[in-house]
């Protein structure tokens, strides 16, 4: 189980858990564990929607370095 999934992975795993529970493949014994995991995935997904790690300055720096390499 990936502890730091990207949003595509988190999304996919979440859908997997949902379909498992919808099809009744989850027993009461597993339920707490699955619900806990799903809550984590939901939090990851929601965080991805409302935050960004990209930084203009870093891109400009990369751009400068590639452009000076070109010269």
């Amino acid at each position, binding site marked *: 189980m990936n502890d730091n999934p990207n949003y595509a992975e988190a*999304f996919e795993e979440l859908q997997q*858990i949902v379909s498992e*529970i*919808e099809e009744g493949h989850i027993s009461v014994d597993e339920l707490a564990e699955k619900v806990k995991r799903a809550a984590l995935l*939901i939090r990851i997904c929601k965080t991805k929607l409302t935050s*960004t790690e*990209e930084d203009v300055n870093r*891109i400009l720096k990369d751009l400068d370095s590639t*452009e000076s390499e070109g010269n």
Partner: protein
Amino acid sequence: MPEMLDDKKIFSLLEVTTSIQKTLATRYTSSFWVKAEMNKLNYYPHSGHCYPDLVEKVEGKVIAQLKSTLWKDDYNRINQHFIKVVKAPLKEGIKMLFCARITFDPMHGLALRIIEIDPVFSLGELEREKQESIARLRNEGIYDRNKSLPFPLLPKRMAVISVQTSKGYADFLKMIDGNPWGYKFFHMLFPSLLQGDHAVESIRYQLDRIRKVASHFDVVAIVRGGGGEVGLSCFNNYVLSREIALFPLPVITGIGHATNETVAEMVAYRNAITPTELADYLIQKFHNFSAPVQKAEETLVGRAKRLVADERHHLQTSVRYFRSVTDNVLIRSHHEIRQHARDLFKQSNLNLLRQKQTHSSIVYKVRTMALSLCSIRRQELGQIFLMIRKDLAAYMKQESGRMSNMTKSIANMHPENVLKRGYSITRIDGKAITSIDKVMPSDKIETIVADGVIMSEVLTTKKSPGS
């Protein structure tokens, strides 16, 4: 007038040029329609005049060229008309049909003076150019290249090609940054011209820059808007369209116009038409991600609750069932025990009764036997008693005789009688003396005889011989 030198007739340059001017003026008296490509517009903003370079090419090779003039007033009128019909200003590099006159100026030489340009012809030419771009991209198999790229699940990071001060860009940012769902987009502007002759070059420059830092971005958005319908022909440019089609990131366009889609828009991953629709499209992608997450959350909570409730119900049913079963067993057992108790009681009573009967019969027997035994013993005792009485009387008679003899003997043995017969008792200190060892010479002793006491003092003692 020409000079004569020797036999030579000599003209001045002005005379030559004036002659040419006259000849041409008489030869070309009226205007005529010409089809040519405008290689360069050569517009001089200061004077407002244009001096377009006209060429004719065969397979890309120039086979004829001529200068032309387009005076300020003609240019303004023609350009207005052109913009109205073609939706683009007069530009370089297009074929046109124009009405012109041959002019010859002694200073500037031969030129065509353009009086009128037929925009409909250029429109057709532009359309043909556009169709050619499409056909070439299709032939090269790259027309759908950008569309076939995988689109990111969340197009969060955008490289925006736009004009910083344009209304379209402002509208776009307002929607993207102010979305009420709190979705966070990252966007970075790569400023570029988006219309006119230099747009192609400018956009290509920025695409090239974005390609270098493509790993930082999910999509490229080309945002124009506010510029009306004019100047969009640059987006039909083959080279630009090709670059968009081959771009490694999905390119989305919001160029903002109502009619004819341009080639760049056709080959882009998606043409959202306007900047606000482009913003909507991106936000919708977030919704598409967010909604299932939301739904997943609801489904999970609902299902989990139901599962727990079902299990609880199941458990309660089992408990109730268990209780009812045990109750039944208990009742049945109670009943059975009571029944057993009753049976036992009845049986015991019966046994007791039977025992009692046996017992009383034994008692009766015992009593009968005891009585009969008693009667026998009593008779035996009676006989024994009679015998004893008889024996006793004889015995008593015999013993009575013996007693009277004994009484006589005993009377003879009385000390009084003994003393009378001459025996005496000697005592010291009240005690009878039985040995010479009990007395010492000068001890006072008393001797009792039948009729009194003799007091004496011991002189000596002498042991009897043989004692």
